[in-house]
């Protein structure tokens, strides 16, 4: 079983790669479409600005590969900006089209939090589990396994972001309270997203990555 992390030239993927190794998972960081297609599960990371990241993904034509993987039924996990790119569009410095894999859009936290609340939202915040009705209609997770299977209500994870996903309640599986409920984790069948950084969230983060890897078996038996 192999997990491939999409390398499209944005950000440092050292910690993310090491976190999969630490849970005993074979992992590679690659920009090779064939290796991504051959992987059992794929992770789409991301830091920085939405426009730059989605442009970099399209320039390398890896956007098409990511969409292809999502359609294949294999587990796909977007992290932080990688999660935001799964949605239809973002309003971060302009208006940008996303990958359209999960319905919803990305907007500035500043529009919704109290004026005195610090943005970016940086630090450890508690997850509150929700049950978006469209999260796993006919996809993974029906047999009880899900991305947050091992995570208890109120578990803390580490966030660093200024923009957040909205209009996506039907696919939201966890929120964090930051004046408003901030979308923390999403699912649409085999496509998952975490706004927080599991690779920086200690033991809870590693449990989430383990749960993601466990979905590979479920995906294989479903295919």
């Amino acid at each position, binding site marked *: 079983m192999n997990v491939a992390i999409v390398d499209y030239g944005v950000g440092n993927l050292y910690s993310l790669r090491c976190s999969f190794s630490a849970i005993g998972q074979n992992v590679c960081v690659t920009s090779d479409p064939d290796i991504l297609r051959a992987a059992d599960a794929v992770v789409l990371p991301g830091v920085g600005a939405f426009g730059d990241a989605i442009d970099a993904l399209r320039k390398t034509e890896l956007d098409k590969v990511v969409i292809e993987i999502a359609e294949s039924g294999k587990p796909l996990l977007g992290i932080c900006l990688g999660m935001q790119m799964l949605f239809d569009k973002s309003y971060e410095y302009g208006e940008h089209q996303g990958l359209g894999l999960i319905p919803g859009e990305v907007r500035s936290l500043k529009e919704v939090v109290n004026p005195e609340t610090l943005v970016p939202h940086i630090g450890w915040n*508690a997850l509150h589990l929700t049950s978006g009705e469209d999260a796993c209609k006919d996809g993974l997770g029906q047999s009880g396994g899900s991305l947050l299977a091992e995570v208890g209500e109120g578990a803390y994870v580490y966030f660093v972001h200024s923009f957040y996903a909205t209009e996506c309640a039907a696919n939201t599986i966890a929120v964090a309270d930051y004046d408003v409920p901030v979308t923390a984790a999403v699912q649409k069948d085999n496509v998952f997203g975490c706004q927080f950084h599991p690779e920086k969230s200690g033991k809870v983060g590693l449990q989430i990555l383990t749960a993601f890897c466990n979905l590979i078996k479920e995906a294989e038996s479903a295919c």
Partner: protein
Amino acid sequence: MLAKRIIPCLDVKHGRVVKGTNFQGLQDVSSPVELARFYNEQGADELVFYDIIASFEERALFTDALTEVASSVFIPLTVGGGIKSVDDFERVLSCGADKVSVNSGALANPDLIDEAAKRYGDQCVVLSADIARVGDGFHVFSTGGRTDTGRDALQWISEGVSRGAGELVINSIDTDGVKGGFDLELLALVCDLVNVPVVASGGAGCAQDFVDLWERVPEVSAGLAASIFHFGEVSISDLKRLLASEGIPIRLI
């Protein structure tokens, strides 16, 4: 609501953690990796690694240690010590650091804050300031707190935040080493002044000092300490349980 953070600071010299430690169960008390794992298991919310020597020749020892820590400890890592250029940022970020702390390097060249914030984002740039009372006000000191720059500390902090520092570490020289508690007066002034997270440093002598910190200055985001954790006077897990019992939002593991 965000949890208040507890941050142990590890001083690294020749690739080894300096300051004696006496934790039971640690094979090698000066191994950065073993100590990082130990603190992580105790519930540290972040680790700060401070490169004591930071001479050109010895940097590889530091970055090797950092790389090894980042491969096995999955919480945010901040690095400081001898950061003078954007190249220094790149060097430690590529080894797995999440944030970089600047101090004397930013005093000598304030543009470093702007350049690093533009390239890596505000969240990556931590401005650390060593501050002491001089006359009626506060001055910022350079070179590890040894040299009075003559600059007004609050003005320097405001300038640093407007240049793009995404977090402040406020180290009070007056309370540092005294173990009589954090400098609550200074911290309250800083929290009123800026809208970025403020990390309190210098003066923690016992667990109650952290309770007093958040009862008196609840805006402070994190408490940083070195010796009380290293010498085992206060265990992070006990401290966090105490804080939680006092109603302070804390990540318990």
